[in-house]
């Protein structure tokens, strides 16, 4: 069996967050080295604050200024910090109940090792030097042996409040197209298009998925199709997509390769885009080192009759 392909897939986006009144006050407060909690209907103080009472579901907006010192309620040692985490050296993830709060905030605790951390230990905020109104304005917590701080009511009003943040997210996957598509991609490197036939309905799937979605059975019989085919339908793309190195306008077509029972998608070239039509007969054009045909061009054959491809639309 040929090698099953694998490749990294990175999904990454700078999501934006509109904060609403409570998170706006909380994050703007951090910028000003003020930690705000919110009072619930039953008199508890939640830090970090939320917009709606977890017990009554009522909107809650009464903010209080809690201490920047607190007590570790539980923790876990992180021996190998990863990209984007608050500290580069090993640290403890800690839940810290700040003085005046009834709930605990998750953050990093800078400590020389797990032996230096215990539940009930006293800690204080180490503020970041540059603060922008983000949870990272708290650089981390550090051990502290001073007094408790006072708690005061706070209007949560600041000059130039932060109303939105950018929250970059990144996921690292290892992607594999699986056995059937790997075989298809390997065949393409010999400039051959190979699908698989369903043993039950006899339809030829290109690209193959390893199973027939209609019959629900595995497919294995390989069938070479094309190289020529018929444009069944298409659109003319006039929008330049980010990260897509294709000049617009271009024709994006559904192409039924001869012998295939569903269409695959490709770009049509070698003909003015306004002259592309349904039924146009085309063949692949390869470029050196290309994994796929660069595009398809007209063969010069007469157009296919509509009835020959109407079931493939």
């Amino acid at each position, binding site marked *: 069996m040929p090698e099953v392909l694998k490749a990294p897939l990175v999904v990454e986006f700078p999501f*934006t967050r*509109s*904060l609403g009144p409570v998170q706006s006050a909380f994050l703007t407060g951090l910028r000003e080295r003020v930690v705000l909690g919110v009072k619930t209907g039953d008199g508890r103080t939640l830090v970090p604050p939320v917009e*709606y009472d977890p017990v009554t579901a009522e909107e809650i907006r009464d903010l209080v200024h809690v201490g920047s010192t607190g007590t570790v309620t539980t923790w876990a040692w992180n021996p190998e910090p990863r990209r984007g985490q608050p500290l580069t050296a090993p640290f403890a993830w800690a839940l810290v109940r700040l003085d005046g709060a009834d709930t605990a905030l998750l953050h990093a605790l800078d400590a020389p090792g797990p032996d230096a951390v215990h539940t009930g230990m006293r800690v204080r905020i180490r503020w970041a030097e540059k603060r922008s109104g983000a949870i990272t304005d708290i650089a981390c917590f550090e051990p502290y042996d001073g007094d408790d701080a006072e708690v005061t009511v706070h209007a949560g009003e600041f000059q130039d409040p932060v109303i939105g943040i950018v929250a970059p997210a990144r996921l690292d996957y290892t992607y594999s197209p699986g056995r059937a598509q790997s075989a298809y991609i390997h065949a393409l490197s010999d400039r051959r298009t190979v699908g698989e036939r369903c043993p039950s309905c006899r339809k030829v799937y290109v690209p193959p998925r390893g199973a027939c979605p209609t019959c629900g059975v595995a497919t294995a019989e390989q069938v070479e199709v094309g190289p020529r085919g018929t444009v069944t339908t298409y659109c003319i*793309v006039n929008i330049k997509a980010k990260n897509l190195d294709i000049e617009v306008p271009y024709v*994006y077509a559904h192409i039924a390769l001869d012998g295939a029972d569903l269409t695959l998608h*490709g770009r049509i070239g070698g003909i003015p885009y306004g002259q592309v039509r349904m039924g146009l007969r085309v063949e692949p054009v390869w470029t050196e080192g290309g994994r796929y045909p660069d595009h398809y061009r007209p063969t010069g054959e007469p157009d296919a009759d509509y009835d020959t491809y109407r079931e493939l639309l």
Partner: protein
Amino acid sequence: MSKEPVAVVGIGQTKHVAARRDVSIAGLVREAAQRALDDAELTWADIDAVVIGKAPDFFEGVMMPELYLADALGAVGKPMLRVHTAGSVGGSTALVAANLVAARVHGTVLTLAFEKQSESNAMWGLSLPIPFQQPLLAGAGGFFAPHVRAYMRRSGAPDTVGSLVAYKDRRNALKNAYAHLHEHDLTLAKVQASPMLWDPIRYSETCPSSDGACAMVLTDRAGAARAPRPPAWMLGGAMRSEPTLFAGKDFVSPRAGKDCAADVYRQAGIADPRRDIDAVEMYVPFSWYEPMWLENLGFADEGEGWKLTESGVTELDGDLPVNMSGGVLSTNPIGASGMIRFAEAALQVRGQAGDHQVDGARRVLGHAYGGGSQFFSMWLVGSEPPAS
């Protein structure tokens, strides 16, 4: 034992806009939910369960947002379910909620769907750089445009039909205060002169990108009896799915859509949808999908749907009004779009659609689809409770 009849007694929407920078996601869903409760004159304590839906998590980048939204929706200590079926999710979310009432699992259920598209970019979310695949597509428009061309070829519809739909829906939106696009100066000529994005689809024939939420309170017969305003009654509801691609897939008129509609009509005793149904809120993200779905849903024979559009039958004052609210073409918070269709259908039979009310609407269809035309959800609501 027969099913419990399901009534819609509360409906709430946000004013849909391009970006709601003043609220968090929690604040956005809360606004719609509170309006639905106010409409039903109920409180959070009256709700037995919450069923929430939205499109892919990549659209905001909040994984499993339902966890964080539990307190905003009063769901603490109650069952909370998340539904996901791509663009049809707003419809299927409402149906999951309705089924909980119909099965007498819960008496009163809050259902809600949302999208805050301004927090991300849906075109990016739908075009991830999958290794070994040739990058060709430019978003949903590039996916659906070839199928529109196939419909035009199959039906022989004149090129102008898509622009008629867009112009109608945008004018209808002017009568709906919650609609996103209010294009007062739009003319048919402007629609027809707007840039061709994915030929044959023009800019003005595509949906906007919106922030918005929609919520409904569904309840049983006893709940409906206590409702302060007329309820909408569910007469039938169904979902169907099929693969994105398979040999024999009909993208112009998918089998799953036909089967889904047939199931709804059977439940509701509809013999002839064109005659028995008064209006339709259908999921039309690109204008040509109106004639395509008119055929798929059985309102016209194959190849004939465009004639209803062209002759004005689907206008607000026509014989079968379609997308009285302005539709997806005027408002598209993706995850909420299906539920807005369902809710707008319910508003019509309750007689509460305001300026876009169809006089005497007694049976109205709500329709949603999603993915690569592979998920369908629909319900038919009526002003009278089901017969049995």
